């Protein structure tokens, strides 16, 4: 193998599994260390810079970071990264001194943001400190988009939402609420310098099976119904409710129904339990509230009496793996009939822009999605950028933040007359030694073997009685500290300097995870089997040194390294050092003075 180029920003970035997995590349270990030091405000600001909505995401994020966490591989349960983010948000102090300054004098460029959801808000936050005038349009009476209209209050309290939305709006966004955008052409006529489309994926999918038309007044589309609950138009639901669908919207629908007076609530899902789209913890929370989830039941027919819904007939299937893909085949058992008075349909949603005229130079692909450059998020119309769910379809809030940072850079480059795709600033990595002295490291190197701590919940009866009672209580400072200690500090890297190594084997002998081997060089596949312990996780890189005096190379399997620093502790010549990798992901703020 070739020696590893550790100055490639991606190399050590990949070792920080959580940060690599996070679409916004939040420096997770860095803020977790700050939480352990009770520096909640700084921890919050690190989050705010990367993902813009720490308090909201600390409650609602889909957490791509957690399955990536190294602890999943070294034991089983990841660090509760998401809930630690909430700890930072819950316990932070005054953040105003840390906020970017918005200049009084504008730079003369006007930007229109369509939609007031997370993507548009994040773009506004990035643009405002550079002097841009930002106009934001939304059909709802307030900002926040789906965070306001679709996420129930028992998961995301209104004050948490409003605090983070208002923070950005108050930076100087010109809001145009209750503004139904009906024509892109009309918007273009307003002659802004650039447009950002962040209108989300507002259309819930429907289902065309027998009886659908006849019972339409007993059927609600999940996201529309949640929205009407959020804005107070719907305050109750009665009778027996069936929620169709297996995603997070379905979970929100069933738990909301449970709180609004449904006689019974049942979730019926076409697919198997394990492959449901909903996050595991959302499923667990729904089941903990006594809601049954029935799987492998595709709906066949709505049964009604002259338009009055009686129930639904479901078929029975079982998942069978054919050529590595799941297929559902009928079991041959008789169909199931479930009584129902109301159906909530939560079987997916689409980005849908009927208001964009198709003759403006904005190209759409065969699935009727806008054609967008993945790096710049620019559409085929140079002034128009997309982000959030309206760019590539429904995703989590964290993706909206990630898109927004990219789009803001693009808009800035475009307004400067530069190329949004090719003039983008590069990523970079800084490595800083953490050695403080003899046996002293600036981070808590000791491995904490404790198991993941469980987040306390509000009393079940109390939370079912009131839709505004938040179910998860979050970690207190003590539990937050304990959970923070589980973080392995994967951003404190083991950095090897060949010319200092005397090949004494001290690092090999001490490494608790058998990560390090000195061996003759070979092709990667061969090396992976020749190590002290086999390196079977192919996605995890091998760190290979230059050839050493004994004609061997040092090979470190990054997979299970605990970053305990013992290799550096036991190295007599400092050939190993523990160095913090700071990954620079370009943001527009790096342009600001």
């Amino acid at each position, binding site marked *: 193998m070739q020696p590893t180029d550790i100055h490639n920003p991606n190399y050590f970035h990949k070792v920080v599994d959580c940060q690599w997995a996070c679409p916004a590349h939040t420096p997770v270990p860095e803020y977790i260390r700050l939480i352990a030091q009770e520096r909640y405000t700084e921890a919050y600001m690190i989050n705010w810079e990367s993902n813009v909505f720490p308090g909201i995401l600390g409650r609602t994020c889909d957490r791509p970071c957690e399955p990536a966490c190294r602890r999943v591989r070294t034991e089983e349960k990841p660090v509760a990264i998401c809930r630690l983010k909430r700890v930072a948000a819950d316990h932070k102090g005054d953040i105003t001194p840390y906020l970017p300054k918005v200049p009084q004098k504008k730079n003369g460029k006007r930007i229109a943001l369509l939609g007031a959801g997370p993507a548009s808000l994040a773009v506004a936050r990035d643009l405002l400190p550079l002097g841009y005038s930002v106009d934001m349009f939304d059909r709802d009476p307030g900002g926040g988009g789906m965070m306001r209209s679709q996420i129930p209050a028992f998961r995301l309290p209104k004050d948490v939402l409003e605090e983070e939305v208002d923070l950005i709006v108050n930076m100087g966004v010109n809001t145009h609420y209750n503004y139904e955008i009906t024509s892109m052409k009309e918007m273009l006529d307003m002659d802004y310098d650039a447009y950002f489309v962040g209108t989300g994926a507002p259309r819930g999918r429907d289902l065309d099976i027998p009886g659908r038309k006849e019972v339409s007044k007993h059927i609600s589309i999940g996201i529309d119904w949640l929205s009407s609950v959020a804005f107070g138009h719907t305050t109750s639901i009665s009778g027996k409710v069936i929620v169709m669908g297996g995603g997070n919207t379905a979970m929100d629908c069933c738990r909301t129904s449970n709180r609004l007076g449904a006689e019974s609530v049942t979730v019926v899902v076409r697919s198997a339990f394990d492959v449901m789209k909903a996050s595991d913890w959302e499923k667990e929370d729904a089941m903990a509230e006594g809601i049954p989830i029935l799987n492998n039941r595709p709906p066949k027919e709505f049964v009604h009496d002259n338009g009055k819904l009686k129930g639904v007939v479901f078929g029975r299937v079982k998942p069978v793996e054919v050529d590595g893909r799941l297929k559902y085949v009928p079991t041959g058992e008789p169909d199931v009939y479930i009584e129902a008075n109301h159906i909530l349909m939560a079987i997916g949603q689409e980005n849908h822009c009927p208001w964009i005229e198709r003759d403006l130079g904005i190209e759409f692909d065969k699935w009727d999605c806008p054609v967008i450059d993945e790096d710049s998020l620019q559409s085929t119309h140079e002034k128009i950028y997309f982000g959030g769910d309206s760019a590539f379809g429904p995703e989590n809030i964290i993706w909206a933040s990630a898109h927004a940072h990219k789009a803001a850079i693009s808009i800035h480059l475009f307004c400067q007359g530069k190329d949004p795709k090719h003039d983008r600033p590069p990523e970079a990595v800084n490595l800083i030694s953490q050695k403080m002295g003899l046996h002293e490291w600036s981070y808590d190197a000791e491995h904490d073997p404790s198991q993941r701590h469980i987040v306390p919940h509000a009393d079940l009866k109390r939370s079912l009685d009131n839709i505004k009672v938040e179910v998860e209580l979050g970690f207190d400072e003590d539990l937050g500290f304990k959970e923070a200690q589980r973080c392995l500090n994967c951003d404190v890297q083991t950095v090897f300097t060949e010319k200092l190594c005397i090949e004494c084997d001290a690092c090999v002998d001490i490494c608790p995870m058998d990560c390090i081997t000195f061996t003759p060089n070979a092709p990667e596949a061969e090396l992976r089997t020749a190590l002290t312990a086999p390196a079977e996780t192919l996605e995890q890189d091998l760190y290979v040194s230059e050839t050493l005096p004994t004609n061997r190379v040092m090979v470190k399997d990054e997979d299970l390294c605990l970053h305990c620093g013992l290799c550096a502790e036991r190295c*007599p010549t400092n050939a190993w050092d523990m160095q913090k990798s700071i990954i620079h992901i370009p943001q527009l703020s790096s342009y600001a003075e």
Partner: protein
Amino acid sequence: MTFVPKPAARHPLLKTNEIGLTRRDYEAIVSTLCAGCGHDSVSAAVIQACHELSIPPHQFAKVSGIGCSSKTPSYFLGNAHGFNSVHGRMPSIATGAYLANKELKYIGISGDGDSASIGLGQFAHIIRRKVDMCYIVDNNGTYGLTKGQFSATNDRGSTSKRGVPNLYAPIDLVSLAIQLGASFVARSFSGDKQQLIPLIKAAVLHKGFAFIDVISPCVMFNNHEGSTKSYSHVRNHTEPVVDANLIMPRDEIAVEYEEGTTISVPMHDGSELHLRKLSDSYEPNDRVSALTYVQKAQEEGEIVTGLLFLEEDAVDCHDILGTTDTPFNGLAQESLCPGAEKLEQINDSLR
């Protein structure tokens, strides 16, 4: 010194041996020796060897004297028996322990000061008495604990850290051991575990006195240019003459050797020791020829390594004395102390 304890977490694919233990079960507390000390590599080799032998840790007894080397039994086989004796007196303790209980596997760790200076007399006599044990000397040619004076195994002309040459000729423990009748004599290097681990395994299983001289650099006081016991000097001046490979009963023999170069020696536990000659003129079964070879090489500044001498069907001190096979702790009170009447009978028989 290292203050960070070694995490208990381990690689999920770490191999278990025949009795279901991983290598980590043969470890002990984290070493307090200087970072990079060769002795820590020797400890790691002992850990690996004992794990591969699938002998439970509590069936070992570790004995040592005084010095950096003699601290190391604290850093391996945490669940074994052990005795850290006074300076140079480990052989007496080992002899006593072995007479009392021959069922344990004895691993003695000593150093060049402990065995070649203060304990040279004890070293000679434990060999002569043929105690069945694996006696390892961590040989760094220097007194590390007292800040780097030359030890008795330091080569003439080898310099101190400040460049002062040693004026005395070294004591070669390997030559001594061959000459005094050890039945298993080997030399290795702490930086070459591939060679060292099989030697330790074979030495543990060997019946009779097994001696391994391990060149183990002192990173603090004897790892500079001018030293003949530094990592780089040893790497550049070793001549392996006999490769030892212990084949356990369950192992499949994967390697085929050229005819005439391999000697196969059955061990008492059913395993087989394969000796592969790397030098045509070397005779590992001939005491005089082995000794001549080793000494000649030493004169030329070469360090001969490998299993240098092996006597098959060796006897140990229990055989010579005709003592009981049962450990004392397994003997009943009346056998251990048969009483005044029996003593009287014995005395009478001698009158």
